C-alpha cells in the first residue's frame, strides 16, 4: 500500500505549484491591464483634488496628502459648468431618443417585413458608417450656414442623430432577427394589432438592446467635439468637451491644470453613472423562457 502511494505524492505537489504559478500570472495580467487603462483617469482624478501648490511642485507629487475641492468650486462658481452640462445632456438625450425612435421601427422593418430592395438599403446603411466623418464636416458647415442653424441645438442634434442611426439600425436589426418569430405569430393569433404587438410584446423584450444602443449613442453624442466646437459659438450653448478644451487661465502662461482635471472628471461622471445604472439591463436576460432554452 505505502509503496503504491509514494509516487503519487510528488505529482500532486507539482500540480499545486503549477496552478499557483498560473494564478500569479493571471493576477499580474489583470493588474497590468487595469493600471494601463485606468492610470490616466486616476491621474486626472488625483489632480482634480490636489492643491495648486502640489500640482506645480517639483518633484511631482504622486500621492497628495492635502486635498481640496477648490477646483470643483471654481468651475461651477466662476464658470457656467452647470450650463455646459445641461447643454451636453440635452443634446445627447434628444439625439439618443430620436435615434431610437427612428432607428428601431426601421430595424424592425428591415428584419421582418421582406421589403423589396432590403439588401440595397442595408448596404447603404453600412456604407454610411464607413465615411470618416471629418469628410462630412465641410458640407455640414455649409448646410448649417445656409439654414441658419448655427448656435441652435438642432445644429448638433440633427448630425448626431444621423451619425448614430446606422449603428442603431444594424444592432437592433440583428436583435430583432434573433427574436423567435413564433412569438409574433402567437401575438397575432391572440389578436394583437401590429402596433400593439410592437408596444406590448416586442418592446419589453427589446429593452436590453435599446439600452445598449442608447448608451452607445449617448456616449458618442456627449463626447463629440468638432461639430460642437464649430457650429456653436455662443458661450451659453457650448457643450462639455468644448468647454473643457477652452478652459484657460488669465494669461497664456498659466494653465489651469486643476480646473481642467476637475472639468474632465465632471464631464465623465454622468457616463460612468449611466453605465453603472443600466449595467444589469445591458446583460441580456430577458428573452430567456420565451422558447425552449
Amino acid at each position, binding site marked *: 500500500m505505502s509503496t503504491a502511494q509514494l509516487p503519487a505524492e510528488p505529482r500532486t505537489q507539482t500540480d499545486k505549484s503549477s496552478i499557483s504559478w498560473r494564478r500569479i500570472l493571471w493576477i499580474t495580467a489583470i493588474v497590468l491591464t487595469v493600471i494601463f487603462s485606468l492610470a490616466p483617469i486616476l491621474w486626472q482624478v488625483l489632480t482634480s483634488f490636489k492643491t495648486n501648490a502640489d500640482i506645480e511642485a517639483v518633484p511631482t507629487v504622486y500621492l497628495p496628502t492635502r486635498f481640496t475641492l477648490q477646483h470643483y468650486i471654481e468651475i461651477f462658481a466662476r464658470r457656467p459648468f452647470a450650463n455646459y452640462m445641461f447643454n451636453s445632456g440635452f443634446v445627447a438625450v434628444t439625439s439618443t431618443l430620436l435615434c431610437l425612435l427612428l432607428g428601431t421601427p426601421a430595424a424592425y422593418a428591415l428584419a421582418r417585413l421582406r421589403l423589396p430592395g432590403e439588401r440595397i438599403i442595408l448596404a447603404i446603411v453600412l456604407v454610411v458608417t464607413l465615411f470618416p466623418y471629418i469628410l462630412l464636416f465641410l458640407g455640414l458647415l455649409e448646410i448649417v450656414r445656409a439654414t441658419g442653424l448655427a448656435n441652435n441645438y438642432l445644429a448638433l442634434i440633427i448630425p448626431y442623430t444621423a451619425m448614430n442611426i446606422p449603428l442603431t439600425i444594424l444592432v437592433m436589426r440583428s436583435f430583432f432577427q434573433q427574436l423567435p418569430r413564433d412569438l409574433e405569430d402567437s401575438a*397575432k393569433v391572440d*389578436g394583437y394589432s401590429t402596433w400593439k404587438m410592437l408596444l406590448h410584446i416586442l418592446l*419589453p423584450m427589446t429593452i436590453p438592446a435599446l439600452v445598449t444602443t442608447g448608451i452607445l449613442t449617448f456616449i458618442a453624442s456627449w463626447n463629440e467635439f468638432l461639430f460642437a466646437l464649430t457650429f456653436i459659438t455662443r458661450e451659453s450653448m457650448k457643450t462639455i468637451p468644448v468647454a473643457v478644451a477652452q478652459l484657460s487661465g488669465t494669461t497664456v502662461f498659466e494653465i489651469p491644470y486643476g480646473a481642467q482635471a476637475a472639468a474632465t472628471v465632471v464631464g465623465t461622471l454622468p457616463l460612468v453613472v449611466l453605465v453603472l445604472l443600466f449595467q444589469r439591463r445591458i446583460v441580456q436576460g430577458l428573452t430567456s*423562457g420565451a422558447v425552449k432554452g
Partner: protein
Amino acid sequence: MAKLELSHLNKTYSPKIIPVKDVSLDVDDGEFLTLLGPSGCGKSTILRLIAGLEQPTRGEIRIDGKNVTQHSPGDRNIAMVFQSYALYPHMTVYDNMASGLKLKRVSSEEIRRRIEQVSLFLGLGNLMQRKPGQLSGGQRQRVALGRALVRQPDVFLLDEPLSNLDALLREQVRAELKQIFESQNTPVVYVTHDQTEAMTLSTKVAVLSNGDLQQLDPPRRIYTHPANRFVAGFVGSPQMNLLDLKCEGKFAILGNYKIPLPGRMTPPPEITLGVRPEHVRLAEPSDTHTLQGKVILKENLGMSDLLSVKVKGAENQTLRALLPSDRPWSAEEVTLALPPDLIHWFDVETGDRLTSENLQPVY
C-alpha cells in the same frame, strides 16, 4: 360549436415552390384531425393558412359556415399552440393566459374564472405568478396549452407541440392531450411528423406529401388500407416491405416463389408488393404459401426481433420480418409465410393501391 372547412386551398410562393397544392378538408366538432407528413410536405403551411398567419393564393377557409379567408388571425377565434410554445417572456403565467382575453374585452372576473378552471385542470395552480423562464419544459408546454384552452376558441390548432419534450414526458403529455381534447368538443387540427402521435391522438389523419393530400381516413384505416405507396411507406414502424415484382399469369414472382394476385385481375407486367414486417410470420406446417430465405441481419427490438432476409432466388430483394423473440428459428435460414389478406398491392407507375375491385376493369 363550429365546423372548419378548407376548400381547394392553394399556396404558391413561386412557380416552383408550391407548399400547398389543392387541399380540401372538413373538421367537425369533437374531431381531431392530424396533418401527418415528412418535413416540407406543407402541413405547417396549411396550419398557418388556417390561423391566418399567411394568406392562401387560392381557396377558401370557413369556420362555422362563415368565410374567414380575409379575416386577420385575431378575428378568427382560433387558438394555436406553437412548437416553441411562444410564451411572452416578460409576462407571468397568469398574464400570458389572460392577454388574449383582455384584447377580446372579456370581463376580468370571467378571465379569472376561466384561468382558475383551466389551471386546476392542467395543475398549474401554484405557477401563476412565475415567468416562463422559471418553468421547466413540460410546464411551459402546459402553459401554452392553457393559454389556448382559456380562449374557448372555435378551432384549436397545434403545431408539433410535443417535439420539444423529451421522450418520456412526450408519452405522458400525449396521453393528457388526448383526454383534454376529448373533453373539448371543438375541432382540433394537429400537425406532426410523428406517426405515433397521429395514430394515438386523432380521429382522422390526413397524410400529406409535397403539398398534396395523399389520404384522409381514420388512423386505423390508414394503417390497414394505405391509399398508395407513399402512405404505406410513411405510416408504420418498422417500415412496410415494398418490393417491385414481375408478374407471370396470376402470380407475382419473388425469387423462387409465386405469390398469387387477388381477384380476377389481369396482372400488369410489374407490380409492387407491400407487406408490413409485423405481418410476416414464421411458417407453420399448415401454410400453403411459404418462402425460404437467408437471414442477413438481426436487430433486437426487445419484445421482438427484426430480421432482414434475402429471399431464395431473389438476391437483390430484402424482406424484413418482425418476429416475436420467444420463437426459435435457425440462425441461417428461415421459412416465412406471407398472409395473403395482409398483402397490399400497388401500381408500379402511379403508386396507387390496387384491389381486386379496381383491377377488374383492366382487360
